[in-house]
């Protein structure tokens, strides 16, 4: 019993382990593999990312100079980020939202 006392006191007076999720965002660890973003000014439409993507989440439309990325197919391995020769793909340090409405993201040359 005495060995439990420390734990009991900690649980009685400590903060709760959970957070009020949708209102309060969870802390983000440095270097977390989050969503990707395409910089269309740097992109030369070489389609390397499309060929490399293990889950076929990226598709490059060369004619329309447009890239589509499906967040739900993506496994967040960041192989595309590491392999892009022009550093056109950047990674965000965020946690992607569990939202079915967010849909497929399109990046287009302006």
């Amino acid at each position, binding site marked *: 019993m005495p060995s439990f006392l420390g734990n009991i006191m900690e649980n009685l007076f400590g903060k709760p382990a959970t957070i009020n999720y949708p209102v309060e965002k969870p802390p983000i*660890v440095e270097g977390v593999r989050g969503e990707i973003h395409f910089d269309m000014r740097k992109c030369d439409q070489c389609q390397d990312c499309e060929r490399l993507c*293990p889950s076929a989440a990226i598709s490059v439309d060369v004619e329309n100079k447009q890239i589509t990325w499906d967040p739900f197919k993506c496994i967040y391995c960041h192989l595309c980020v590491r392999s892009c020769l022009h550093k056109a793909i950047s990674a965000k340090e965020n946690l992607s939202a569990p939202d079915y409405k967010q849909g497929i993201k399109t990046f287009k040359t302006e």
Partner: protein
Amino acid sequence: MRLVDVGDVIGMSKKNSNLTVIPFGPQHPVLPEPIQLQFYVDEETIVDVLPNLGYVHRGIERAMELNDYRRNIYLCERICGICNFMHGMAYSELIEKLTGTQVPVRAQYLRTIWAELARLQSHLLWLGLFAEAIGFESLFMKIWRDREIVLELNEATAGHRIHLSTNVIGGVNMDMDRKLLSRYLSDMNKLKKEINDWSPVFYKDRAFRAKTIGKGILPKKDAIHLGAVGPTVRGSCVPQDMRTLGYEAYGELDFQPITYDGEDTYARALVRLDETHQSIDLIKQAISQLPEGDLVNKNDKFPEGAAINRVEQPRGECFYYGVGNGTIHLERCRVRTPTLPNIPPLLQMLVGHEVSDIPAIVHSIDPCMSCTERITYVKEAE
């Protein structure tokens, strides 16, 4: 379509018609993944057991033949969620054998550290689940809280809690700086202290010992004969451990396979408990010997010829066989995960015991069904 009744196929149902058949699974609170075991019981005693596998067959081997061989690493990591790093590592090693690539020494050490980290979190997960299966709910929560230390290290290393995805053919794609390595060392000391805090329950608790000692006996001779692997065979006093082959940096590290001669569920639990200490020790050794150098050796050759590769996963020996034909696709890739060779010993362990012992004994081999399913039988409904 329905799954085949194994009893019908081998005429077991007719033979044992005077016995009661209890189906255990495919959905059962103690099973994390679906497998059906049909128990033929005489009152409370189990007389015979028939397994029925194939509920979560995903066709991964076929997908591996259709994919680019370099992309398969990420597919292999999805064979098993718990030992994902080791699957990626085993596949990378296989392709390195087929292409004749030499992995840099630093990458070998980093792979060893991450593989031991994966073993650590898998054993902590199992110890927690096992504690819960035999009625120790708060111990389960305490062990899983300590497992968070490992998962947070994973997150700090590669950005994800479970899927590290750090393997590439010929090395690794992520490095660890001095700050992270010192965090590894301090967290390992913290984890060791926490494990020492709750491990007396496994050694001394009367209820725990009563539920595990003498249950699920697997004699040494049968363990070898039936081809058991991993902690299951080491609990029967057979020092079989693939790490002693010296793949990656294991050849440079000092360790001995942990064995217990109890031959029962208790011995298998203690093997896993001691292996958590061993993993912590191996991580510390690897960090102290970690050399400087390159992370990856690139090789443009396509895989050609045939090769096998064996690694020690938390559940036992994992076997990879690959055939390359000099193109971007592999001709064949076969994966045998450790749960499959552990099922015949499990069937033997269960015979002669009572129905109430089933959860603890089934759990003692650490079944991971989704990794195991390489084939499924279906037949047309009448």
